């Protein structure tokens, strides 16, 4: 998990085009000769669904493709398991070009490497829940007892224990999609394609499913391509988000990059209503700590330092710069009166702390419940910054890049 290790590329799309119509190849030539999408639709009746898409997805990543209907997101995800054949371009999975695979090879890839979860669940109504989940194993030719046992395990994992023998249409939407998810997971794929998997669910159930899904991913190591039309879902689920419009990727970046620096008006329009506090991480608004003291120092030094810097508190660190606690100026003065000579005696472990990658939102309840400052610490508990109340308020409202001049 360390950041120095370069992640392995699992899926790689190179200049993928998809044109629907009876003569896509010729249409592609027309585009290269400069005809626009509208002219092509009008004169030839061809629809350009995906235009020159390139992206890489790293192993274990959650890659979100976001776009409205007709943006080409469903087409591109279907190119990844060749439910749709791209008109041109290459798609590599583990450095193997999908286009070079024959029928049998692509079937094997679908059976073992890539699974899919569908927007409308696409469960088989003539099969029970467990036989739905076992479908992928069944087509692989795995004996009934074995595939049922595996299906049963996966059903337990998604919280559907006891529903094995029901028909899928007897289940609620959320439960049906759990079956869909279980069916996809049962074959233990390396890649999971989520085609608007939670879009058909009620908002409350959707949020619950998102959380459970993210939680599930901590147990199973998968590479996820997640399609959605809902920006807040994209920002919540994605490690990186690609925003598509008219078959093009208009922006590709981390949720934070997209919210802070939308690439064009289209994306700006999208992120307008996103609460920054949910996306912008703490490190963007943190300041260097004003006063830091070591636990072997004494209260007199503490009072002096705080007076010098005109602050009311100081962070106490141990020799490894790990955060030990916070002391206020009044507490330090009291300590002098009490004759305490080392700050380590005063440490109560009372510091409010947060990681640098947490969204600003998480700081708000901390800052609201106490007068003490909030410390930002890294994975090794070392102090790397503090959050001032003024910065917190600014961080929640400020718009960067001069965008606040726009309507």
């Amino acid at each position, binding site marked *: 998990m360390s950041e120095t290790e370069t992640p392995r590329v699992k899926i790689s799309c190179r200049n993928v085009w998809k044109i629907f119509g009876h003569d896509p190849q010729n249409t592609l030539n027309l585009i290269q000769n400069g005809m626009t999408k509208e002219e092509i639709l009008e004169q030839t009746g061809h629809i350009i669904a995906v235009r020159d898409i390139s992206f890489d997805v790293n192993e274990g990543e959650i890659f979100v493709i976001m776009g409205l209907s007709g943006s080409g997101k469903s087409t591109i995800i279907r190119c990844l398991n060749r439910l749709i054949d791209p008109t041109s371009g290459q798609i590599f999975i583990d450095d193997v070009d999908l286009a070079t695979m024959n029928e049998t090879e692509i079937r094997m890839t*679908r059976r073992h490497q890539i699974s899919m979860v569908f927007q409308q669940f696409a469960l088989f109504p003539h099969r029970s829940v467990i036989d739905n989940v076992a479908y992928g194993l069944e087509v692989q030719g795995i004996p009934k007892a074995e595939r049922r046992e595996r299906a049963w395990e996966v059903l337990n994992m998604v919280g559907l224990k006891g529903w094995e023998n029901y028909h899928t249409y007897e289940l609620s939407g959320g439960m049906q999609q759990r079956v869909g998810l279980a069916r996809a997971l049962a074959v233990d794929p390396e890649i999971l394609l989520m085609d608007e998997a939670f879009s058909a669910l009620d908002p409350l159930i959707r949020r619950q499913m998102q959380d459970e899904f993210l939680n599930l991913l901590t147990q199973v190591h998968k590479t996820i391509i997640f399609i959605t039309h809902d920006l807040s879902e994209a920002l919540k689920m994605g490690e990186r988000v690609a925003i598509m419009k008219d078959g093009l990727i208009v922006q590709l970046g981390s949720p934070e990059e997209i919210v802070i620096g939308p690439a064009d008006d289209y994306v700006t329009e999208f992120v307008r209503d996103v609460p920054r506090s949910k996306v912008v991480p703490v490190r963007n608004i943190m300041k260097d700590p004003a006063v830091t003291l070591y636990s072997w120092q004494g209260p007199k030094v503490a009072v002096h330092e705080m007076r010098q810097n005109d602050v009311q508190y100081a962070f106490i660190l141990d020799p490894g710069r790990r955060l030990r606690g916070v002391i206020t100026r009044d507490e330090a003065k009291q300590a002098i009166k009490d004759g305490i000579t080392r700050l380590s005696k005063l440490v109560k472990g009372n510091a409010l702390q947060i990681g640098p990658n947490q969204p600003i939102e998480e700081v708000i309840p901390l800052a609201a419940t106490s007068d003490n400052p909030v410390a930002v610490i890294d994975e090794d508990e070392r102090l790397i910054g503090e959050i001032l109340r003024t910065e917190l308020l600014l961080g929640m409202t400020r718009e960067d890049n001069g965008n606040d001049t726009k309507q």
Partner: protein
Amino acid sequence: MTQNSNPPNKLVQKLQRHRKARWLFWAGTSGLILLLGWLFSSYYPESFYPPLAADPPWNLAFWVSEGMDWLIVNFAVIFDAIKLVTRWVLNSIEDSLLMLHEWSLLAIIVLWAWRLAGRRVAIFSGAAMYFIGMLGLWELCMSTLALIATAVLISMAMGIPIGILAARSDRINNTIRPVLDVMQTMPAFVYLIPAVMFFGLGNVPGVMATVIFAAPPAVRLTNLGIRQVPKDLVEAGHTFGSTDFQLLFKVQLPLALPSIMAGINQTIMLSLSMVVLAAMIAAGGLGREVYMALGQVDIGRGFVAGTTIVLVAMVLDRITQSLGQRGKRGTSAL
């Protein structure tokens, strides 16, 4: 704008050619029909168009007859084989129906109806079949059932695979659609003639004429049922790496089952309506009874046999209809 002022590109031209080709096709077909009409116009004296010769040696009817003769002479072996197999199936079914004691057969029918269609249909079926027995038409009824069963079996054995092929390919579908139209709309009497020519008189040509008349719904509704399987379910099937065969048997056919059952139900009904006509070429059963009543202008005898056919139709209809409904329950919640 510079782009627009370019001469129409290749693809646009191609599209226009395509449209032109469709026009040409229909115009050509119509022209061909008119040409044939002109060539064959002399057969009936009331022809719109004066004949080419006073008594031309060729006309449509003559041409078809010649073709038939040619087929009979050259493919006699094949027709004999078909005849043998069909007769064997027919006789086996009829023998086993007659071998069973009336009561046990009655019990089987009632039980079958009860299991598939519920108590009410079971009671009705029992009463209807018993009524037929009381009229003394039990044996004739069994002959008719054997005829229908054979015709329906053959219709299914041919119709369902053809329907599957038609569902998989638009080209096949477009090719067989007019053939099915002809099979269904051609007056059923017309089939009797080639049936007799190929298979002689008796039950076998009766079954064959019935098959031609009754098979189209099996093809059509199998095709329809498979095409109506929701796209995302087919996609899901592909996603998990199903072979075409697995997809067909694990996803498409089970989901098309209600529709296929409806097709079989229609096939049975059409077979029943053909039974009387088949009697004209010496097929047995209740049809012969009706046909003889017609010959003797015996309204009573005709009515009794006719009523029996209606009762058999109702029993078979209710039972097979429920088969389709049973399958449908699974998909209705989609």
